[in-house]
């Protein structure tokens, strides 16, 4: 396993890109640590598959270098990169048994038979495929097939990274959770470098050490699940992660006050006046019902009772505002809310603004 360095990578599918809009993937500069699990998260068309294909060698980036460990692999074809990949739809060799499937990559690399047998047995044990090792692979269920795809990567000792391209798409919902936690366990025990592409935030947040959120061809934030939740660096991250997403309200910011639709909102820190479009972002979890000073009037559209808590969907003026409220307290006819000042983030042109020291 090795560290993956994406050295100023950018890619355009056009032969001679002129403007930034021509790039399917705008400049990415990342160093991914050896043995960590990374999730590439974003809506479809955000460039996450392009980035994965650049790592796997299917696409040569128009700019920049891909480095595995110390080795520049930018120009190497897929087969020379020593990576493993699990695809969206299970790819297995129908006519072979499970064990033969796992032995296939080693046989192709002329590994001695004794070594093959040992490693295959190990991998079968690792994945819990023991009972079906001698069965033909084609009769198995989708999740077992995905395990075989994974196993064909795990069986090799020289793998730099294991790539996952939305691997749970065709798995039954109840098996999804099981497979994901098994994957997580394997990762903890054996420490592979993993790159996992998904558009499902739950998958990304539960699986990865670091989540790479992408939006419109750009990496907008790399962080731990907690960082993404507490300090979204981009309003898109705030909106995309969390359910419901972060409330984003246009505001004028000056000092430790923001003005939203004529109402003052307290900020936890002090900000310089910002040029351009300014907004404040606050998670629904940090919105409270309160009639006190500095509260804002909201109109209620609906209340969803989830069981453990309630989601109030409402608006301040024309802007949508959601709040997560505890059970057991009546919602008044014309409620007012306050935000937790420490949890209010300030954005300029959709990007997070740091407070003054």
């Amino acid at each position: 396993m090795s560290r993956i360095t994406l050295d100023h990578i950018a890619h355009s599918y056009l032969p001679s890109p002129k403007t930034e809009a021509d790039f399917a993937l705008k400049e990415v500069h990342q160093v991914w640590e050896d043995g960590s699990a990374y999730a590439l998260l974003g809506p479809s068309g955000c460039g996450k598959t392009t980035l994965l294909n650049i790592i796997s060698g299917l696409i040569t980036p128009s700019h920049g270098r891909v480095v595995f460990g110390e080795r520049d692999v930018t120009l190497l074809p897929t087969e020379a990169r020593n990576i493993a990949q699990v695809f969206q739809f299970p790819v297995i060799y129908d006519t072979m048994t499970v064990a033969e499937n796992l032995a296939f990559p080693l046989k192709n690399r002329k590994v001695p038979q004794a070594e093959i047998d040992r490693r295959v047995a190990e991998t079968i044990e690792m994945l819990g495929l023991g009972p079906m090792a001698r069965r033909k692979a084609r009769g198995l269920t989708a999740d077992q097939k995905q395990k075989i795809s994974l196993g064909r990567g795990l069986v090799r000792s020289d793998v730099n990274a294991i790539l996952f391209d939305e691997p749970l798409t065709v798995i039954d919902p109840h098996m999804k959770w099981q497979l994901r936690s098994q994957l997580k366990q394997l990762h903890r025990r054996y420490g592979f470098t993993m790159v996992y592409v998904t558009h499902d935030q739950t998958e990304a947040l539960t699986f990865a050490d670091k989540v790479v959120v992408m939006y419109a061809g750009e990496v907008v934030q790399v962080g731990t699940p907690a960082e993404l939740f507490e300090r979204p660096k981009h309003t898109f991250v705030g909106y995309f992660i969390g359910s419901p997403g972060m409330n984003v309200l246009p505001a004028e910011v000056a000092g430790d006050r923001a003005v939203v639709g004529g109402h003052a909102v307290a900020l936890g820190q002090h900000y310089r006046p910002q040029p351009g479009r300014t907004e404040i972002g606050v998670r629904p979890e940090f919105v409270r019902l309160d009639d006190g000073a500095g509260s804002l009037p909201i109109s209620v559209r609906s209340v969803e009772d989830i069981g453990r808590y309630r989601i109030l969907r409402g608006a301040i003026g024309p802007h949508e505002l959601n709040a997560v409220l505890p059970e057991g307290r009546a919602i008044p006819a014309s409620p007012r809310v306050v935000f937790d000042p420490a949890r209010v983030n300030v954005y300029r042109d959709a990007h997070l603004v740091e407070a003054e020291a």
Partner: protein
Amino acid sequence: MTATTYSGTANNLSRAGIRVATAGSGRRRLKRLVPVAYILFLLLPVYWLVSLSLKSNQEILSSFTLWPQNPTLTNFRVIFNDPAWYETYINSMTYVFLNMVISVTIALPAAYAFSRYRFLGDKHLFFWLLTNRMAPPAVFVLPFFQLYSAFGLIDTHIAVAIAHCLFNVPLAVWILEGFMSGVPKEIDETAYIDGYSFPRFFVKIFMPMIASGIGVAAFFCFMFSWVELLIARTLTVTAAKPIAAAMTRTSSATGLDYGVLAAAGVLTIIPGALVIWFVRNYIAKGFALGRV
């Protein structure tokens, strides 16, 4: 993104170039050679036929030339001026078209029944239908002649059209059943709940949904009816004689008129070529169903 990153373009392009050159372009060229050689092999005899059709009979017999020295349309003129020739052309078209219509029309409800219902003897019936595709036409030549004579249908278009149904109806049922099975049954049920009668549902909703299947079935009916000759020739004398059969006449009647023979051959290739051209985007799709 900063301007500096764009400056690497030239560098990047040359890198990509190296990769293309090293990735076995020789093998790729060799790979292209196979289909090209095959197509040349297919076209050479056809070229020869076209070339003969444009030569005068005298040129054909007196000198051996790779292409017509004095290209002439005389041979085609002979065909188009002689009703005995061009009527056979119309005959062929007529019974092929009739067969297509009959085959697809009666295959539609049957295919629907096979794709939607289970009924007494359904599997045996389906298999029995398919065995007809395995019957050698030669076996049917004599009994067909006697049967259609008994009904006074010899030398009519409808006789050939119905005889060809023997091969085409099973085929059409098979193809259509495949397409229909791909349409979820819920569609039918929803339509009935919405108050559609069966015939109206079938024509207004169901048939448009399997339009490509109907096209594929019609294509294959055309194909087999157009190319078949043994039965078509047996059942016709003059009034419904197919063009293909008329060709056997040239050698005896006009003393080996190769030019006209070749011209007639060229004319029989054209309808098929036209049909292929129109369905070219569906060919692979039709075959992909594995239902041919």
